[in-house]
């Protein structure tokens, strides 16, 4: 469904992605793990058209999407839940969700369909329902993460990109979010590319994984194999990561 071939992305002179290739089949949950600054966010933003690649190809459902503007990418069916949630803080929960469906408003009978989808998001995350009229910025981190996911789903994506959704959240909330991701795949057939630093939890959820280091893919394989991989264990699954850094 999605295929990146030899992607190179630069920030000015900083070479952030070096010949990155990866692929996702329809209905897969694939994770991308790596340390801070490895280039995980850059990969998602390159797919979304925010930081276009200077070389390589991105094929989505056999269509070349490299260098398309972000709104075109969303229109084709790829939505991103950005790092740090990035909800529209001064706007209400409802308004945030409506904006997620921004590109659908021009269609006929759009309003009814959008309302219906919003109800589905509220079923998925009942806590958002209670807070419909509340300003998004006043909610807890977990609730904002749910809203960010709900907002992305309002575009009816076929492929969902998530950037560290578990960051800063309590384990119980992370479990709830991962459960929803599984449900989305099972019920709607959404394909998911999930960036995480929390490698252990995510490798249990995902089908396959890629390990990224300084802009390069250094390992890839089925999630259970990665879980057993000595290198991954050393770098990402250690009980105390700090200990490893300091060594």
């Amino acid at each position: 469904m999605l295929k990146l071939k030899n992607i190179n992305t630069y920030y000015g002179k900083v070479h952030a992605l070096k010949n990155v290739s990866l692929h996702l089949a329809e209905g897969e949950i694939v994770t991308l793990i790596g340390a801070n600054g490895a280039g995980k966010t850059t990969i998602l933003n390159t797919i979304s058209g925010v930081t276009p690649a200077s070389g390589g190809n991105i094929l989505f459902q056999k269509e070349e999407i490299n260098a398309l503007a972000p709104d075109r990418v969303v229109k084709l069916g790829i939505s991103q839940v950005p790092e740090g949630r990035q909800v529209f803080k001064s706007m209400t929960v409802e308004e945030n969700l409506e904006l997620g469906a921004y590109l659908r408003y021009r269609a006929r009978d759009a309003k009814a369909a959008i309302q219906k989808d919003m109800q589905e998001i509220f079923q998925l995350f009942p806590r958002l329902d209670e807070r419909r009229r509340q300003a998004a910025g006043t909610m807890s981190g977990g609730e904002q993460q749910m809203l960010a996911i709900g907002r992305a789903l309002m575009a009816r994506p076929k492929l969902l990109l998530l950037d560290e959704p578990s960051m800063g959240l309590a384990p119980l909330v992370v479990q709830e979010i991962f459960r929803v991701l599984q449900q989305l795949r099972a019920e709607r057939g959404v394909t998911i590319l999930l960036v995480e630093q929390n490698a252990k939890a995510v490798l249990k959820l995902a089908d396959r994984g890629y390990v990224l280091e300084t802009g390069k893919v250094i390992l890839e394989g089925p999630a259970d194999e990665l879980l057993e991989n000595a290198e991954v264990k050393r770098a990402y699954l250690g009980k105390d990561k700090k200990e490893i850094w300091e060594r």
Partner: protein
Amino acid sequence: MELGTQLLQYLLSGLATGAIYALIGIGFSIIYNATGIINFAQGEFVMLGGMVTVFLLKAHHLPLWAAIPLAVLIVTLVGFLFERLAIRPLRKATPISLVIVTIGGSILLRGLAMLIWDKDTHSLPSFSGDDPITVAGATVLPQHLWILGITLVLITLNKWFFSHTISGKAMRACSCNPRAAALVGIDVRRMVLFSFVISAAMGALAGIIVAPLTMTSYDVGGMLGLKGFCAAIIGGMSSGLPTVLGGLILGVLESLGAGLISSGYKDAIAFIILLLILFLRPQGLFGKPESERV
């Protein structure tokens, strides 16, 4: 005249001028919220509104009811072109260079107005005569009522647009978080264009409705722009009620200052308020520190 009646008189005329400042201030805020820059050409949109209407009336003998919408349309087009030709090509530029571009645009528009028309002051007929109306001893002109009425309609429309239409919400989303706005599929550049179009239209209307009271000429944009900017600063660059109140407060203070102290101080009042707000309450008179601008 009794003091009470006199105060009422100053209050009424102050509210009418204040309404004009509010409209201009909202124009500043809308562009600021979409782009993060102060558009110093905003006053020129106001000037063009009045001058184009005068020109359509005098040179083309259009009736007032036709000249006004046509003038608004023309100035809106100027706002559109200004964004396309001067702002968009520089989207990656720093805010300070964009601000300098708007200053350049302002000088250019003023110069063009002087070349196309002249340096004279022109008057526009009042919309419905000049027979004063007495309100509790104070007199108001019908044009004052037009100003208040049209401003009320525009502010209501503005409020409706930003809180009830998806395009208005998208514009707020862009000012709240442009990166996230792009990720939900909002074309941020189009919203910037929108902001110039709306601000130009509002500025033009302000310039048209005030012209019967104050006359107009190629250089009225500077002072009116400053007053509108002051209203927006009082309102903490909000494109809603706070800036409206900012405009009304400024208008009334000016009118009281001119009436009770001396008309020579009228323009100084805006400067003094501007400096006081910037030093003491940079978030605006009504804003909490660090609050979100909407």
